[in-house]
């Protein structure tokens, strides 16, 4: 799960957010803080269908050593992990909630995130709800919006680079052994 400590980028090629939004909700420091600092990720809207993007992300995060807790009322178990109907039913502390739901559903979900005391909330790529994101900010949470946990993790551990993508990372320092 190690990330390249010294490397950061402010670059995001995504077009959906304004520069102001990006400074708030797609900040490299926040992204790295979450990726490095968390262990338990609750995924709201995680699908049990293997071809769905959420399933891709969950399977990636599991193989990178995170605890993934599915939140999906229509499933008992996803990728071998017990699924819960909502955040409140999860019996262990949650570090970050990754939301794979329609933007309109996010206000209620963020209220729940605040209630269960998670430290961070992450709205997946394409999930944009400024009202919900601002509510989480006001409650003191670290917030990321319109970004993919798998892509961002890949950006900083070097694997996104291996498929030719522009990570925006420039550094003349020696990389760390393994993932640093």
């Amino acid at each position, binding site marked *: 799960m190690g990330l*390249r400590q010294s*490397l*950061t*980028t*402010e*670059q995001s*090629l*995504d*077009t959906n957010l304004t520069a102001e939004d990006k400074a708030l909700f797609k900040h*490299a*420091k926040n992204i*790295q803080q979450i990726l490095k600092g968390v262990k338990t990720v609750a995924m709201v809207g995680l699908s049990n269908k*293997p*071809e*769905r*993007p959420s399933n*891709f992300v969950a*399977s*990636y995060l599991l*193989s990178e050593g995170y605890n993934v807790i599915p939140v999906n009322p229509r499933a008992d178990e996803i990728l071998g992990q017990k699924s819960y109907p909502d955040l409140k039913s999860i019996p262990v502390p949650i570090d970050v909630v990754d939301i794979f739901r329609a933007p309109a559903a996010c206000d209620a979900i963020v209220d729940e995130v605040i209630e269960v005391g998670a430290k961070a909330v992450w709205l997946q*790529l*394409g999930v944009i709800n400024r009202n919900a994101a601002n509510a989480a900010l006001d409650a003191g949470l670290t917030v990321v919006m319109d970004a*993919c946990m798998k*892509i961002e993790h*890949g950006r900083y551990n*070097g*694997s*996104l*680079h*291996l*498929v*030719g*993508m*522009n*990570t*925006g*990372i*420039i*550094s*003349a*320092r*020696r*990389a*760390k*052994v*393994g993932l*640093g």
Partner: protein
Amino acid sequence: MSNKKDFGFETKMLHAGHIPDAVTGARAVPIYQTTSYVFDSPDKAAQLFELKQYGNIYTRINNPTTAVFEERMAALENGTGALATASGMAAQFTTLMTLLRPGDEVVASSHLYGGTYTQLEHTMKQLHVKVHFVDPTDIKNWQAAINNKTKALYGETIGNPKGSILDIEKVGALAASHSIPLIIDSTFASPYLCRPLDHGANIVVHSATKFIGGHGNSIGGVIVADGKFDFTNYPSIADPTASYHNLKFFETFGEYGFLMKARTVTLRDTGACISPFNAFLLIQGLETLSLRMDRHVKNALAVATFLKEHPQVAWVNYAGLPDNPFHDLAKKYVPKGPGAVFSFGLKKGSGDVREKGKKFIESLDLFSHLANIGDARSLVIHPASTTHQQLSNAELEKAGVGPELIRLSVGLETIEDLLWDLDKALQQSNL
């Protein structure tokens, strides 16, 4: 933790895509001359094959040396990512194979490299893709050729053979208004002279064989995507892909959707991958790209100006000359100079001008007579006695390459020596 700004072009040229090696500390980019990579575990291998992890699988799909070339090109073109291919032709073909389905149509500029024209006209026809060629200089021609089957627009930054400059912003706006991507071949410009994605193109392709490699030693190509095009209603990228358990590339990979499909479906299945050693040589080329291009355009302008004044020369087609019809577009899209490849016409004397062309070529000592462009050395070709020799004079005129046409790719030699060589050959061929 630095709040780093965007780095400059030259910095990216030298650093983007490569961090000094973790194990050895090697500063230069290592050449990973390997076909394949040992998997950590069967589970990790399965993750890789299902695209649930990004990583090395097999060099037909990706390679760590090639990845440096790809990320560097993406950074230089201000793109979201890149895919390297065996050649420029393969870059174009991979792009079209990824985007198009049988029955789709393309509208393309008629000012294209001859090989590209053949690929679009004949090979695409075999795949049931119809390409409409239009005079690119009037946007109305593009507009008129678009219909509900049109799935891409295609042009060159600096077009063959007339050196015309494409109004990328106009064509890009038209493409956007029809929700279709604009593909630009920017081989003649290189990312140093023009970055089409900044002007509204969605995909850039290059023959890296030319200025990117810069030394005439490696064939290669590259595709760069902007990551901004919305493929939501574009079936080939949005719809489920049968060979990956119905994965939807756009939904799953977002801004990387097109490139991931190009790599893991098209390149995997058509096999036109680049060799890691060629990727290494192209990286070496990129590290001096700005310096070479500055000199290329400086020499090209000096040669064009000299020829323009020469009594044995009928005309010069270089958009860098102030009286050229494309000079204003050149100032906008290639402000540092419109490349180093252009054509000029020998003055028709009393004899056969085709023979005069041959004699001119034979009289040169520094310009290499060959079919390529973008070498550090100066190159020359006379189409009427080589690539187009089977055509009659009338057919040549119709194709826009008359029997008097000479094409130059101006290199980095001492300018006085180049002018000396041209002057001498012009005198000697004055039959």
